[in-house]
Structures are given as structure tokens and as C-alpha cells.
């Protein structure tokens, strides 16, 4: 029987919402206070699916998942400004934009059949899930 294993990670970063195609006034009107440089204590949840190994009882090697998420995502964004992160070039750093961007970074590493969900929790009031697809 399959299970889904979710690991909760944390990073802190600065960002601002800005569409480079728009003027400063248009961005300020569109994004309001979110256009000002500010930051969050983010939580990143990564969900993988698998069947527990009959011997070890483990569906996923969490040490390996931690290494992958740490190297591919956390090390790049923690205590950085998201707009300056190469891996996020062109991404409007909304919660949903980040969830999709992290999915695209993690999927080749974790495996398309294994990765089930990437969730970005921006504040206690806002969480964004991305499950791939269209």
C-alpha cells in the first residue's frame, strides 16, 4: 500500500513582487505593499509517494531527500533575495510562482513518479500547493 511522506523545510528570504514588463506605477498598483522589498519566514513542504520497503519500513530515504532539497533549493534561497537567485530568473516570486519553480527544480532530481506535491507556506495565512500538470 502506498503512502505519502511529507517533509517540512524552512528558509528565510527577501523578495518583492514585480513584473518587469510593467512600469513602476503599474507594479505598485498591481501588487500594493508586496511591491516593496520585504521578506518572509517560508516553509517548504515536499511530498513524495512510495511503498515502504518490506525490510527497512522506509518509503523514502529522507537523508537523501534532505540533501537534494537542501542543495537544489534551500542553499540557493535561504537568506537571499529571491529576485537575485539564478535558478529563479524570470519567476514572479508569488507563493504559487515559487511552488511551481521549486517543483520544476525538484522533479528531475526526485523523479516524476515520486514527487507528488510542493507547498510553499509564505505566512501563517497563505499556503500554495503545486502538483504539476498543466
Amino acid at each position, binding site marked *: *500500500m*502506498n*503512502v*505519502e*511522506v*511529507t*517533509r*517540512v*523545510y524552512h528558509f528565510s528570504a527577501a523578495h518583492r513582487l514585480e513584473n518587469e514588463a510593467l512600469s513602476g506605477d503599474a507594479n505598485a498598483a498591481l501588487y500594493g505593499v508586496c511591491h516593496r522589498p520585504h521578506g518572509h519566514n517560508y516553509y517548504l513542504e515536499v511530498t513524495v*509517494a512510495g511503498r*515502504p520497503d518490506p*525490510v*527497512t*519500513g*522506509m*518509503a523514502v530515504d*529522507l*537523508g537523501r531527500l*534532505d*540533501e537534494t532539497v*537542501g542543495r537544489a533549493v534551500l542553499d540557493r534561497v535561504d537568506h537571499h533575495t529571491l529576485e537575485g537567485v539564478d535558478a529563479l530568473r524570470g519567476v514572479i516570486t508569488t507563493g504559487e510562482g515559487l511552488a511551481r519553480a521549486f517543483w520544476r527544480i525538484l522533479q528531475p532530481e526526485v523523479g516524476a513518479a515520486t514527487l*507528488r*506535491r510542493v507547498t510553499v507556506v509564505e505566512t501563517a495565512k497563505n*499556503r500554495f*500547493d503545486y*502538483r504539476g500538470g498543466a
Partner: protein
Amino acid sequence: MSASAYSTRRFSFSAAHRYWVEAWSAAENERVFGRLTAPHGHNYTLDVTIRGPIDAQTGMVIDLGELKRIVGETVVDRFDHADLAVDTLFRGKVATTENIALAVWDLLAPKLGTDRLWQVRVWEDPTLYVDVRGEAPSGEPSSSRGVDVRGEAPSGEPSSSRGRE
């Protein structure tokens, strides 16, 4: 077809476990599991989600008192302040969070019925949880059924259990 609602109740139990495969040598266990081979414990959090129509008379998916009694008698009384390594449910198995979630599902499914029991979520600590849902009738993996039951992470100090040390 009437719409379903999902009702989740939270439980907790504190239990001991260790990562240890009897068939392996001590050195092999140490190599694979590291410090997890030492008996230790967690404050586990269990979220049980029931799915069903909202009863027209009571306005409830399930009587939460009934759910509390069933989960209490079946799971919490058994696992709270217990050593999972010696529970017969884990004979020949490691009491990983994955296997604990599967064991909870197997304990509750006959009592609640798989038509009502939707999901079992076991949190080992605030950084790790495992979900089990029933197999879809078509045989496709349950996890492809995209329902997500939300809950606040249990409060408390995160501890990296199986993660980076």
C-alpha cells in the same frame, strides 16, 4: 449524488521506537540507520479524516464523540506510552512513520469502514508526516486521488528525526 464533507480529529500519543532489522548484524543496522538504532521516542500526532455526507438530522459527517471513542480504544490506548518495537503489529517490521501510519489504517479501517475512513496522517514531529488513504477502486494508487486534508502542524520543537544530523 450528495456532496461529501471531510471531518478531521486530532489525537496524540507518545511512544518509543527504534530502527532495527533483526535479521541484520549490529554493524549493518548501525551503518544503515545510524543513531536511529538507539531506542528513543516521539510525541506523535495523529489526524484521522472521515469522509461522508452531512447528515440531515444531526448536521454531522460523524459524531466526533464516536470517533474519539473508536480511535482512543483502538489506537491511542494501545500506542500511548508504549514501546512500538515490542507491539505485535511491528513484529518483523521497523516502526517507521510509514509503517505506523499503515498500522493505524489497518486498525481503524475495520472499525470505521473504508467508505468513511478517508485518510490517516501520522506526524512524527513538526517536520515529518505520512499520509495513508484507501486504495482507489480502479486499482490506481490511492495517492493519485488529489484530496488534501489541511491542518496546522503540531506545535513543538522540530527535531530532525531521519534527516540531516
